[in-house]
Each structure stands twice: as structure tokens, then as C-alpha cells.
């Protein structure tokens, strides 16, 4: 019997696409399949094999799943192999977002698009976390595509919140500020400038009662500088918190202690932070673009434009109505349930079964095997509910 191996350019703890690959690998092993992760470069020294060492593990019946989220050397390597290839398209950002800030990075994204088209010829199936991405895959020439939402592993962000960060956020609440949160790298497609403008509108209309936390690594000098300049010109430097990178514990503190999660992103392939925010019962306001409407579902408020006044007034209404907040928390819980590992793993199992049928593999995988991810989630969920009620 062959194996279902994973190929991914790099795997770092806490990175979205790496987590998704790890969860899939985890489940495949539970099903009784052999499954390894191969990387282009083992940057975090996790002891993972590199992709060019694959011949040492190869079996002609193997199915190779490539996780595409950036350009890498792996697609052209896969071209040289005869094994069946599956592509999990986690998302690329259209190059025009980066062009004004870094033409080289834009060219790199273009390369990624070209690799997706290249793989379309070869792959037996395409997988993506959202319908939005599936459309890209179909346009790139994939003929068989399946949606498989990202499997949520709450252990990534459910640790105890960092004490100092929690205190900082608590103190802000205590002084009468509401904490607005967005999690995501500082990149042009996430359009954080709209959040800053909404905060400015909020202060104009409803008074100086909100603080915005932008949790995410800076990526492009020009864009980061522009955000900073905008904040400065709106006189909001002491109300916008540029958190330039966090530990898991600090991230957990931000999710636990914030009031509202707001996204004005223009292009997302799935948007995991929204799911994480829903999981923590935050009120979520999001601009409907990319895969965001699919991911948010019934869990929060959808906006069809990013008028700062609209965003500010929603935030104000949420903060002033405990009834609305409770309703949103209930919707968030309902949506979290829909996206819980119980259903996403069931969906992933279906996709695996379909894949085996498509490639005529008669492997006996044990699809009845319960998943430890589901168990973890239930436990974490229960603990979270308990602490939630406690506070």
C-alpha cells in the first residue's frame, strides 16, 4: 500500500498553511495511511525531510499532496515524478496588491499563479478550503476540485492567555475603552487602513472610547510606513496598537480579552483568524470579499462596503447593546459548531475517499476511527465554556 505524503515549502509552528497541512497529515495517520510531510526548507528545525529526499521513501502507489500558498521549487520537482499528485490550494494574493510596494514580491506571486496552472495539467484532484479558491483552481485548469475547509486545531491558540497582555487589555477596558481586534500580517490585501479610518470615524462620532489592536507581522516597508503615517495624520498613534508579532500566549490573550473582531480585508483564501475569533465568542464584523463571506457564514455581521461610518456605528451599537452582543455570541457559537473538527474532518474523510476512488486505490482505510482532533476540540471547548462562564 502506498502513502499519502504532503509537500509544503516551509512549515513553521503557528503558520496557517502549515497548521492545515499538519491537521490533514494527522487525520490520515489516524485513518491508517502512511503520511509524511516533506518541506523545501526546514526553517524551524523540526527534523522534517526535504522534498528531494523523497525518492528514499517513494512507492509507485503514493499520492502526493502539494500545499500551495506561495511559489516554490516543489512544483517543478513534482513534474518529474510519476506518482499521482493532489494540490491543496491554500491561496495566493493577486500580484497587483504588492506591485506598488515590492515589484519583486509581486513577480514572485505571479510565479505562484503560473505554478498552479502548471500543476493543473498533472494533478488528479484539486482541494481548497473555500469556494472562492476553488474558482481560481477551475480557472487555472483543474477539472476535479473538492472543498475541504481548514480543520481547526484549537490547541494552537487556546493556551492560557499571557498575563501581561491580558492585564494591558483589561486596563484599557477598565478605563472605558472597547478593544477592537484584527489579526493578520500588515499586507496591502488585508487593507488595515480601513480599520484605522473606521476608528477615526468612531472617535469623531461617538467619542474617544475605542482602541484598535493590529496583530500581525509587518511585511512591506512602504505599506507599513503608509499605515503609520495615516495613523499619525489622524492623530491616533495612542489609540492604534501595532502589535508586530506575538507568542501563542499573547495571541490567546488578545482573542480572550478583545470585544470586537473587525476585518476589512479585500482578499482572503479562507481567513482563519475569523474562525478563531468566532471560537472565542467575539462579535465579528467583516467586509464581504474573497472567501470571507463563506467563512463567516451566519457567525457575524457582513458589510458590503467599508464606509468608516458604517463600521464605527456597528461597533458602537454592539458595545452599547448587551442583547446584540449576546445574540452575536450565540451566532458565533453556532457557526463555530458548523466549522468544528467534527464536521470538517467528516468532510475531509469524504474527500480522501473520493480521491482513493478516483485513483483506483483499494486501500482499506478505517473511516470509522474517531479523531483525536475532535476529542481535543471537545475538551478545549468544554474548558473554554467553563472559563467563559466563570468570568
Amino acid at each position, binding site marked *: 500500500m502506498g502513502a499519502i505524503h504532503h509537500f509544503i515549502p516551509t512549515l513553521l509552528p503557528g503558520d496557517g498553511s502549515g497548521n492545515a497541512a499538519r491537521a490533514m497529515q494527522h487525520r490520515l495517520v489516524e485513518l491508517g495511511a502512511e503520511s509524511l510531510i516533506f518541506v*523545501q526548507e526546514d526553517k524551524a528545525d523540526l527534523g522534517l525531510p526535504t522534498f528531494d529526499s523523497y525518492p528514499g521513501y517513494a512507492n509507485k502507489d503514493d499520492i502526493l499532496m502539494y500545499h500551495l*500558498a506561495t511559489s516554490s*521549487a516543489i512544483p517543478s520537482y513534482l513534474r518529474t515524478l510519476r506518482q499521482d499528485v493532489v494540490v491543496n490550494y491554500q491561496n495566493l494574493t493577486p500580484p497587483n496588491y504588492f506591485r506598488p510596494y515590492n515589484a*519583486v514580491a509581486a*513577480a*514572485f506571486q505571479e*510565479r505562484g499563479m503560473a505554478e498552479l496552472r502548471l500543476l493543473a495539467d498533472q494533478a488528479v484532484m484539486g482541494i481548497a478550503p473555500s469556494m472562492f479558491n476553488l474558482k481560481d483552481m477551475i480557472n487555472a485548469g483543474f477539472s476535479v476540485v473538492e472543498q475541504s475547509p481548514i480543520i481547526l486545531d484549537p490547541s494552537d491558540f487556546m493556551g492560557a492567555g499571557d498575563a501581561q497582555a491580558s492585564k494591558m487589555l483589561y486596563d484599557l477596558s477598565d478605563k472605558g475603552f472597547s478593544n477592537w481586534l484584527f489579526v*493578520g*500580517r500588515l499586507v496591502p490585501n488585508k487593507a488595515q487602513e480601513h480599520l484605522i479610518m473606521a476608528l477615526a470615524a468612531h472617535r469623531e462620532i461617538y467619542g474617544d472610547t475605542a482602541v484598535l489592536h493590529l496583530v500581525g507581522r509587518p511585511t512591506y516597508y512602504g505599506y507599513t510606513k503608509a499605515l503609520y503615517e495615516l495613523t499619525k495624520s489622524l492623530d491616533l498613534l495612542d489609540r492604534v496598537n501595532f502589535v508586530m508579532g506575538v507568542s501563542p500566549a499573547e495571541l490567546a490573550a488578545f482573542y480572550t480579552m478583545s470585544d470586537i473582531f473587525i476585518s476589512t480585508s479585500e482578499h482572503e483564501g479562507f481567513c482563519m483568524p475569523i474562525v478563531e475569533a468566532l471560537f472565542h465568542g467575539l462579535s465579528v464584523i467583516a467586509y464581504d470579499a474573497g472567501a470571507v463571506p463563506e467563512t463567516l457564514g451566519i457567525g457575524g455581521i457582513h458589510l458590503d462596503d467599508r464606509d468608516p461610518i458604517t463600521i464605527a456605528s456597528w461597533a458602537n451599537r454592539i458595545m452599547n447593546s448587551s442583547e446584540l452582543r449576546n445574540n452575536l455570541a450565540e451566532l458565533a457559537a453556532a457557526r463555530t459548531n458548523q466549522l468544528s473538527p467534527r464536521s470538517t474532518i467528516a468532510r475531509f474523510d469524504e474527500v480522501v475517499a473520493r480521491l482513493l476512488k478516483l485513483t483506483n486505490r483499494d486501500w482499506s482505510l478505517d473511516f470509522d476511527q474517531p479523531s483525536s482532533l475532535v476529542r481535543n476540540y471537545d475538551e478545549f471547548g468544554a474548558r473554554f465554556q467553563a472559563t467563559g462562564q466563570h468570568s
Partner: protein
Amino acid sequence: MEILRHQDPIELCIFMPSLAPYDAMATHVLELKAALENVGLSTNLYADEIKKEMRGEAIPFKRFRLKKPSRSRYMLYQLATGSNMVRHLIDRVEPLIIQYHNITPRSEFVRWDPGISSSMAWGQRQLEVLSKKAALGLAVSEFNARELVSATFPKVAISPPLIRSLDLVDSKRAYDVGEFKLLFVGRLAPNKGHEDLIRALAIYNGAFDKKAHLHLIGQTVVQGYVDYLHDLVVALGLDSWVHFSHGVSDQELSIEFASAHAYVSASKHEGFGFPFVEAMRTLTPIVAVASSAIPDTVGNGAILLVDNDPINMATAWSMVLSDNVLRNKLIKNGISVAHKWNLKDAISANLAALANVVPIPGIGLAPLFFDAGLELDRNFGKS
């Protein structure tokens, strides 16, 4: 073992499809070869087609094909068009470096001459094939470097072209009595935008009292395009104002530059643009449409137009021809920009770029313009 390899002299083989006289790429390659020999590398130049005048300069490529592989050999391929050399080079085991002089996009040619356009498509295809095999891509401009990145080269470095300057001649500016001379040097191919120069000349001469001659120097590439240019000149009544010439010697070219009042360009695609540097060096102010690599090459040594609008172009010409303050400022800027491309610095930059792969004694590494490994770092990482 180490000692043995150390004693093996490093051999660098340079490949180019065709070696012809009066060709910027030939100049570049010969200068590079001399520079590499200067730092003690054994260097050979191989060409598939060697023009009569260049016979002593290169070895026929077929002789290389029989050579046994060697651990101390490195290959440097000069890419500007598709060629039959590529399929042999990618089969070799020696490390391969590509120096990219640009391929004009097919779209500029396809409506004029599909035959020529398919040879460009061939070059484009080979660029992608080579990217899988090449250890390093060298680009003569940032513009080219970005194209190499898109073509999936893993590492890219900048290596300016080696330009052998024309002799400076002291020639009087022609037509001193009440007429100007404008110059453009470039092959007669549709990507060079000659028609936009002719159109702007019609408007310029229609609008201003002191009229201008336009001298266009370059070989015919696409006959249909040349026919069109001649028809356009006749239709606009510019017969005695537009002058075509080709096959000029270096000395004649020096005189053309020395006698021009301005160097004008509407070219839509240049991989680097040698004549621009020549114009700046000969104190000829430049008015050019800002396309492809031109802004990188001329910096602030030229008036850059945003598009081919004939009225803006004619106006910019008249400003350069009549406003002495502006003219002197452009000339002054031009001198320092031209100096940036001087042969000595360009040679050092080329050697340093090559040193990223080829061990050249005493040469430090040039920083890479692009490194796929670093770009991966940027794309992954925690939020």
C-alpha cells in the same frame, strides 16, 4: 583532493548564438572575456554562428559539444533570442549561469511579422526551460531582473552591460543655421516606436518656426514596418526632414551623436538601451518615453514622458531645444548618470555577480537582487 581541485584552473565558457561586428552584445561578451582572463580565469567563447569579421574571436560551438564534463568548468550563456545551443547546454552537468539581455515580447511583432514573432516565443520558452537548470540568472537591468524572477529563476543578480564608449569627436552641431537635428539609434523594429517620433516631428515642424531633422539609424528587422515608416514620412510631407541610415561605422556614429541637438526615443521596449548611455556621454540631452528599462538606465539624465502622446513629445522637444537652463541641467545630470555605467565599474559588478557561483579569486560577492529562499521567508511566518 582539495589541493588537486585547487590546482585545476577554473574554466569559464561563454556561449552566444551569434557573434557579429558592430553589435552591443558582442562588445559586452568580448569585454567580459578579457576581464575574466585578467583575473586569471581560463575563458573560452563559443558561438553557433560566427560572422566573417569575428572569426578569430570565438570557437565554433560544435567543438564544445564533444568536450568531456569537467568539475572546474562553469558555463555562461548569453540569452537574447531562441537558439539551438540551449538543448545541448541543459544536458551538461556543469553549473550554468544565464546572462539575460532581454527578449522583446511577441505581441509587439505578431501583427507585423508572425515569423519573427515565433522566434521570440521560442526564446521566451527557452528562458523558462533554462530557469530550471540555471544556478543563477544575471540581468543587465532591474527591469530584466524582474522578468527573470517571473520566469522562476531561483537566484537573480544584476550585472550591468559592458559598454565600450565611442571615441569622442569634436564635430560641430549640424544645421546650425536655424535648424535642429534630432537623433534616434535603434533597429527598425516595431517595438522601437519610430512611427511615434515621426508623428511628433510632423507636429513639431508644423508648430515651431525653427524646424528639426530626424535622423534614424538602425538596421531593418521587419520590412513591413520599414515600408510603413516610409509611407508615413511621405504622407506627412516630411521627406526632406526624416533621414534613414544603416550600417554606420563606430566613427560615423560618434559624429552622429556629436552633431545631434537632442537624442529622442519613443521605444516601447528596451532591455537596457546602450544608445541612451552614449547620448549622455556625448552631452546630448534626451527626451524619451519612460518604458521598460529606460528609466533605470537614464535616471534623471533625461526628460521622461509618460506615454507616446505626440503633443507632449513635441512640446518636450521644443523645451529641450530652446530652454538652455533645462538643457544644461539635463546634460549635467546625464554626465553623472553615464559615469555610473563606466566600463571599469561595470566589469567589477559583473565579476562580483558571477562570483555568486563561480569561484573567482579576490572577488567579493555581489548582493543578490532576488533569492527564492528569502522570499519564502517573507511569505511564511507567524502573524
